[in-house]
């Protein structure tokens, strides 16, 4: 059930330039699924709207959530200053998340670009729990440079391939270059990242005739499907408005790449 609750900050640290890693204690962790997100409310009332942030990890005891976010504006700047013990209002858990079952018994690509890397972590963890071998969980992540984040966390659950834009670590270029350079392949793809990356993955999946599940983002207001602010063009008529515009917050944020026009 979606709820707005008061969570408590457990810890926070900067893990790469302008990238913050925050654990919050909240019962919402009990229902959290990989690829879902929460909305975090700034305390400053001039910045009213909640900030949608993906769930990076769920604590083993299901009592806490980890979010890893980039400072993008006033709201996230405020969040980055929160100290352990501070309270924070959050709405969650939102969206449908990645279909973990679609990866069962398969060789998978988990692809993350930049601030799209965080939701890949919980997904990798759950696919591992589903019985996939570390070699079958091929995690392909892209960063700007060698100031990477979550790499060690991801290495616990899968085989990690890295691309950096400046070539300072791993493959020079993007995640697609890393796939090519390492000569790897998969039966199904799960991805989150910037739009050019998701477009390239959609095209790659079509060429290889495999399914890709991509997590999208868009500016949101309500986060619960009421305002119709965050839509994506869809191949089939969406079930809400019947106009080929699905709501990313509630019908997504994860979509089959073949079903969206991006």
């Amino acid at each position, binding site marked *: 059930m979606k709820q707005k609750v008061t969570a408590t900050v457990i810890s926070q640290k900067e893990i790469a330039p302008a990238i913050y890693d925050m654990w919050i204690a909240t019962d919402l962790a009990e229902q959290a699924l990989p690829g879902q997100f929460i909305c975090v409310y700034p305390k400053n009332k001039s*910045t009213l709207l909640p900030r949608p942030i993906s769930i990076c990890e769920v604590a083993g005891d299901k009592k806490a959530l980890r979010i890893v976010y980039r400072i993008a504006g006033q709201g996230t700047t405020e969040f980055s200053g929160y100290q352990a013990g501070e309270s924070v209002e959050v709405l969650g858990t939102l969206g449908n998340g990645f279909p973990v079952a679609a990866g069962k018994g398969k060789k998978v690509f988990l692809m993350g670009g930049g601030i799209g890397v965080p939701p890949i972590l919980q997904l990798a963890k759950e696919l591992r729990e589903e019985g996939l071998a570390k070699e079958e969980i091929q995690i392909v992540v892209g960063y700007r440079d060698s100031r990477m984040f979550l790499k060690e966390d991801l290495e616990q659950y899968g085989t990690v391939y890295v691309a950096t834009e400046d070539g300072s670590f791993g493959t020079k270029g993007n995640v697609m270059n890393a796939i090519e350079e390492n000569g790897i392949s998969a039966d199904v793809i799960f991805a989150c990242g910037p739009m050019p990356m998701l477009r390239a993955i959609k095209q790659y999946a079509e060429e290889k005739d495999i399914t890709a599940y991509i997590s999208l983002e868009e500016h949101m*207001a309500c986060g619960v499907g009421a305002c119709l602010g965050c839509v994506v063009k869809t191949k089939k008529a969406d079930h809400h408005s019947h106009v080929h515009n699905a709501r990313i917050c509630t019908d997504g944020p994860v979509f089959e790449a073949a079903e969206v026009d991006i």
Partner: protein
Amino acid sequence: MNTKVTIAGVEFKNPVMTASGTFGSGMEYSEFVDLNRLGAVVTKGVASVPWPGNPTPRVAEVYGGMLNAIGLQNPGIDVFMQRDIPFLKQYDTEIIVNVCGKTVEDYVDVVEKLGDEPAVAMLEINVSCPNVKEGAIAFGQKADALYNITAELKKHAKQPIIMKLSPNVTDITEMAKAAEAAGADALSLINTITGMKIDIHKRTFAIANKTGGMSGPAIKPVAVRMVYQVAQAVKIPIIGMGGIANAEDAIEFLLAGASAVSIGAMNFVNPYTTVEVVEGIEAYMKKYHVEDIRELIGAVR
């Protein structure tokens, strides 16, 4: 203690409603709010056929508020009547359907279809959406155009009609008087104020539509002023809205002359706002020994 208000013969258990476009048809927020507690649910605008709405980004935050240019994405009246009305009928709250259109005929079509649905208590006519190119606001920014569409819809409507007024006019009282003269049963105001935000890093508009309608607490003083002005200018009841965040804000609108209030953008900030306003109004009435909420309506002159 009486919290009931009556507008055009329709009785509402309390004066708290939802503002069109911020609450869908109640489905999404029914997880947070007991819809039975609300005076009315005012639905998202519905047209005669499905409308796809505008390109994204459709929303942006501004200081103390937000801009939106959704462009009235909606499933059309047929799906709406098969799905949304039956959903709302399960609740003990009044249903007000917001009606939008590109031409007079579009509005008439929707109004006539809704006439067959006795569960719909009132119709709110959207002649003030700033985000669609045709129709809508074209009818709401000129007094004669507003008069004509109001008079035409009155011929076809079985339910009482509320004309929703735009604040993007020189003198809102002229618009209010035109709607009243044409037979409108009530008025609602204000719709959003046209605004713009530029993303200086990307050097582009924050909203794909370039302009968007501003809502949120930052617009409240403008809305209170307009409700007051209109209350002095017409005799028909007013539903007031614009940045209401809590019961104190709602009471301001009542005192300025509104018979009911709507919660809009603040649903996005606090999904429990509507019910908190209902409870806060009751607490205010107790504190000041107000026996009947109607004592508050227009009490500040």
